[in-house]
């Protein structure tokens, strides 16, 4: 697995990453940006829902955001730690 192909979905609970790129179409991409999911922002995987580990909750800019894996797969990251 090369670093280039990693997305938010590859994070394990408690793991942090830096956002590289948002691949979603507009207007969703802009929504992500507004919520603080901009390139270079740091995110941490905080929770996974019980069934199928979907949706997930991530920590970004001090807030906790819930989103589905489907959307998380459109956010490319570099995993830290």
């Amino acid at each position, binding site marked *: 697995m090369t670093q280039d192909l990693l997305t938010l979905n590859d994070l394990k609970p408690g793991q942090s990453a830096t956002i590289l790129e948002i691949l979603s179409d507009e207007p969703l*991409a802009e929504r992500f940006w507004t919520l603080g999911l901009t390139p270079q922002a740091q995110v941490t995987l905080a929770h996974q829902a019980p069934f199928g580990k979907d949706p997930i909750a991530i920590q970004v800019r001090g807030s906790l955001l819930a989103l589905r894996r489907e959307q998380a797969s459109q956010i490319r990251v570099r995993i830290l730690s």
Partner: protein
Amino acid sequence: MQDSPYIALVGSPNCGKTVLFNQLSGLRHKVANYPGVTVEKKEGKLTLLDQSTHRLVDLPGIYSLNPKTLDEEVTIKVLQEGFGEGLKPQLILFVLDATLLDRQLALLLEVKELGLPMIVALNMMDLAKGRGLQLDDKKLSQILDLPVFPIVATKNQGIKELLEGIAHSLSKSLETNSSSLVASEKIENLNPKEKIKARFQKVDEVLSQVQTKAIGDSLWTKRLDKVFLHPIWGTLLLYVFLAILFQGIFSWSELPMSWIEGYLASLGNFISPYISNSWLGSLILDGVLPGVGSVLVFLPQILFLFLVIFLLEDSGYMARAAFLMDFHMKKVGLTGRAFIPLLSSFACAIPGIMGARTIENQRDRLLTIMISPLMACSARLPVYALLIGAFVPNTQIWGPFRLQGLVLLSLYLFGALSGMALAWVLGKLMKQKANGLFLMELPTYKIPQLKTVLLKIWDRALIFLKRAGTVILAASLAIWFLSTYPKNDFGKSPSLDQSYAGRAGKFLEPLVKPLGFDDKIAVGLLTGIVAREVIVGSLATIYAVEDSDQGEEVQIKNLSEHIKGRWSTATGLSLLVFFIFAMQCLSTLVVVYRETASLKYPMLMFVIMSSLAYVASWVTYSIFS
């Protein structure tokens, strides 16, 4: 009034705007009819220290000035184009959650770019300090070039200084320097995403200058989420909460309900000697009291349900519930976000339908609206309670569980599951396919503020009482008139069969006969199109009129005994099932029309639900007769 100057409260969702609004406007405020979950424009009077009063408008929370949901659109329209005649706010009171500066400062910068006069209330300072934040608010004010007032809205701290600040800003009517903080280059020249990025960069820069210590995590939120979002316990707890909620609606509301019943009965006894034997006496004793009274009794249950919903919302748990329910909602092509309006729909479909405005995707929003009337709203309770009381024996099943309770529970479940199935079917038929977007903020847990919750419940009570005083009163009077007129040849009231209502019932009887309903039920259903609970009042009125023909005492309480003696069990059960599905609520249809701006959806809703009701009732009657 519409065109007088006003102050607008602006901020992100969950920033404590509503709490501040209540602190500033006291107990006096107006809400447009049927407010969603702080979705409607709320207006109050702000009294400054010199006793001058000003209009204060609480705008729905926003994440940016680029609207993604309908309630955000309301706010942005007001900010960019103004209210009504293009009147922009004379002052923006921006509420900033001190625990979320990292993100909300970006919104502040964006709103500031509008160039409207603005001051900042830095809210939740107690929580932020508790989590270790050390911040120089004077310096923040200096850098932002805006007055900043640290406050704790829930504890009324810093409000006096804020009021002084508002007065000062109003007197100067100063222009805000819109040349944004994103220096060096002009922000107008950037594309939308570059703008967002530039603002966030500025936020980080500002924070590094004003913060001596950054905020830490909310330990309470971490601890509670470990339980409430736990893979096993989290889901179990959600189900337990829901079970307690519905159990509470039925058992804990009994006492206040019996008080209301008692008052109504003694009111009837008190006035009857003075007015009996006149048409007015008949009007009040046979028309108004049974009609309005039978509905008023359910006020405690409705308010209890709203109490729990508001507590769940204000504590921050509701978003977690949506997170956990997303899995189930996904199966029928909806998202977890739909869970919140649908839960409100158990109290009343109308706030549910309006609450659906917070759903970003138009398709999901329409589906949520279409199925919300299938969630058993509180207006069905009077009907369910009456019919179950009359036709289901209260045998003990196991432990505290009794047959009546289980039947009631299954009616609720059946309604909800039918709603899910309908969402799935309608979703398949829709041209626009699901985009699978679920994106929502999980706010930190907070202790709900009693005053805020009580004020919201008070709004609900007023709406309900207004309904009982208008729609249901009018319907009761109409039923009374239709069942006591035309007078016969001797100037006396006709027997029920000869009255207008009786004739209408006879006319409709062939249509509902396959469902096991007689002419009197047909009249009840006809009047019940206005609102579901009206049927109880109608039946009470019809039988009261009939009984007073025979010189018997009028008693609402005995309606259950009354229909037990008259109807077969199959008829009772068939009517019970009919009410799971039937679209017996004019207000809902009107709101659906208003919210979708199309006649198609309310009409479709009426046709689908009525057909479902007819078929399901027919099947039930065929099985049990």
